[in-house]
């Protein structure tokens, strides 16, 4: 967009790509986020030194922090995101449920305030019927969350949820809602300018989750038709408008098997999975965020939003599926990354890079786009086959398993799908394929070992890599 921008870095990010791509760069502080990326005061100091007009908070750290948004407002530096008031109105899950009622949008039956006592919980559960879910109002990531199937279990679950919530979020506020059976997680991307226009950019299907963490995201959802999309989209827009929301946000829903949808919560920021929406809508969400923050009216109306094709995103992590998905830090000793038609990868990894042990081990977002879901699955499978990461364990094999699973291919998925798949024994391959592959592996091991013993010079650059060029000879036109 031609807007000069400055970046900040903590000491461990000194050589990160974002530093190199910016027009100016400033040291924020030491490695721990509490001393750098979570220090709004330091950020504002730097913004003033850089004479910045606006701050883009990214999609982590302070991006959902209403106090920081407010501090920006006071410093007259534009926070590229919703106003602090809207963030507060939708920040706690109970307040968001109240907002949903105000906007007349469906939500799961249950409380819209913290439970005052066990008695209130027992009464409400009896009224809406078991099974129910207890959830922390300030919650996230599955903490302070308990499923209760029988009345006699409610007391202990209530107490555990409260104490977990207190420990994790500093608030023991817990509410109760009816459990939706095998729901899908469907979320709507909304975009609102500062002139009262708000549109929705279709949905994302994020039902493939493990421990309440998204693993695969898709757009569009295979089960959302135009009418359902309109209903969910309009509900999301009503919620955003009722809270005075502006900029980009995501309204999360559960969808049951009778196509009834229930408000879950709102994410008041750009999300990790926003590329899948960009690919099917053809829009650039970050640019649109900046235009909105500049006070421009939205240049696109709801009717201009057209979905085209299908996108699947896999979140590739340094973790060991054979060992309880335990993180697997270490040095990437060899790396073969996929490419070609419809494949995009957002990552900063490279051969020789050491995956650190101190942070969330996401390595890469691997994204496949194609005209249809079937073709997108095929492209993703090809990309996964081409992808090899040595030196650390990754969840690549898990994605191969999911994408080859007939239920996934038929889009018979819900938020419990992945846990069920993982509890099944992995199908073994046909035995003769196994023998062939063992023979192959034996031969390959012998070849590698004999290379290893040979002088390095005999492991020469083969002439045969002329490949592609030969095929393209004579094509220059």
């Amino acid at each position: 967009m031609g807007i000069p921008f400055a970046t900040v870095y903590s000491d461990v990010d000194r050589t990160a790509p974002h530093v190199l791509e910016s027009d100016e760069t400033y040291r924020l502080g030491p490695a721990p986020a509490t001393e750098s990326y979570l220090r709004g005061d330091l950020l504002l100091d730097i913004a003033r030194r850089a004479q910045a007009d606006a701050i883009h908070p990214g999609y982590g750290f302070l991006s959902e922090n209403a106090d920081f948004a407010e501090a920006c407002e006071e410093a007259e530096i534009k926070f590229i995101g919703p106003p602090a008031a809207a963030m507060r109105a939708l920040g706690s899950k109970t307040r968001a449920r109240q907002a949903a009622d105000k906007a007349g949008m469906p939500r799961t039956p249950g409380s819209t305030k913290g439970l005052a006592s066990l008695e209130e919980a027992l009464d409400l559960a009896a009224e809406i019927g078991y099974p129910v879910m207890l959830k922390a109002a300030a919650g996230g990531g599955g903490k302070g969350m308990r499923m209760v199937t029988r009345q006699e279990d409610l007391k202990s679950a209530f107490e555990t949820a409260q104490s977990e919530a207190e420990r994790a979020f500093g608030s023991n506020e817990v509410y109760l809602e009816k459990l939706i059976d095998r729901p899908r997680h469907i979320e709507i991307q909304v975009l609102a300018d500062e002139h009262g226009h708000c549109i929705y950019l279709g949905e994302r299907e994020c039902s493939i989750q493990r421990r309440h963490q998204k693993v695969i995201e898709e757009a569009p959802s295979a089960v959302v038709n135009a009418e359902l999309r309109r209903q969910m989209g309009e509900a999301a827009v009503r919620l955003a408008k009722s809270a005075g929301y502006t900029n980009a946000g995501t309204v999360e829903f559960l969808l049951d098997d009778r196509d009834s949808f229930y408000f879950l919560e709102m994410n008041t920021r750009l999300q990790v999975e926003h590329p899948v929406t960009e690919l099917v809508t053809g829009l650039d969400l970050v640019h649109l965020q900046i235009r909105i923050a500049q006070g421009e009216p939205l240049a696109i109306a709801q009717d201009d939003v057209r979905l085209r094709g299908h996108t699947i995103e896999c979140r590739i992590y340094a973790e060991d599926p054979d060992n309880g998905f335990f993180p697997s830090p270490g040095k990437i000793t060899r790396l073969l990354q996929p490419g070609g038609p419809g494949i995009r990868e957002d990552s900063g990894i490279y051969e020789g890079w050491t995956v650190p042990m101190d942070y969330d081990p996401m390595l890469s977002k691997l994204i496949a786009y194609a005209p249809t879901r079937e073709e997108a699955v095929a492209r993703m499978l090809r990309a996964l086959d081409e992808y090899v990461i040595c030196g650390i364990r990754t969840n690549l094999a898990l994605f191969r398993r999911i994408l080859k699973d007939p239920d996934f291919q038929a889009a018979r998925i819900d938020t419990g799908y992945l846990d069920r798949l993982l509890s099944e024994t992995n199908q073994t391959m046909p035995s003769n394929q196994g023998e062939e592959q063992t023979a192959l592996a034996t031969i390959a091991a012998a070849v590698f070992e004999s290379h290893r013993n040979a002088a390095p010079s005999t492991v020469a650059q083969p002439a045969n890599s002329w490949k592609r060029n030969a095929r393209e000879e004579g094509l220059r036109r």
Partner: protein
Amino acid sequence: MKLYIEIDGKTRSVEYTPGANAVKIDGVDMEADAQQQRPGVLSVIMDGRAWRVVLEEHEDEPALHLAGKRIAYRLDDPRSLKARRAHAGGADGPKAIKASMPGRVVRVVAQPGDLVEAHQGVVVIEAMKMQNELKSPKSGRVAELRVSAGDTVVSGDVLAVIE
């Protein structure tokens, strides 16, 4: 060149002549054309089908990546007495518990001299905010305990020895 390769607990002999398209596995002739695409990456054609095989170097246990699977192997060198002995002595001798990843020791569960069962936890390591319990490979006695809570370890460090 004749090599002994162990995969999935089974050792096979491979006779391989660089440049030739024929190999023998356990004395049986097989036609396979293995060409190096670049160091660590082979293109192998067998029965008209091409496979990419990628080498994951590792001191103790190298592995191959083949058709989306990771296959660990071991080179058995029959000329190496040391290798034979290490291999043969496997089940009975003292066994080390090694760190399978870098991290910090958060807890030591057993004490030197303790008797432990196979698969009983001995040391707990934390990395990336998750904890992992490292277990005894066999029933026995904790002969040595080389770390204590708070220590930083790197992959392969010996944490304890069970005898």
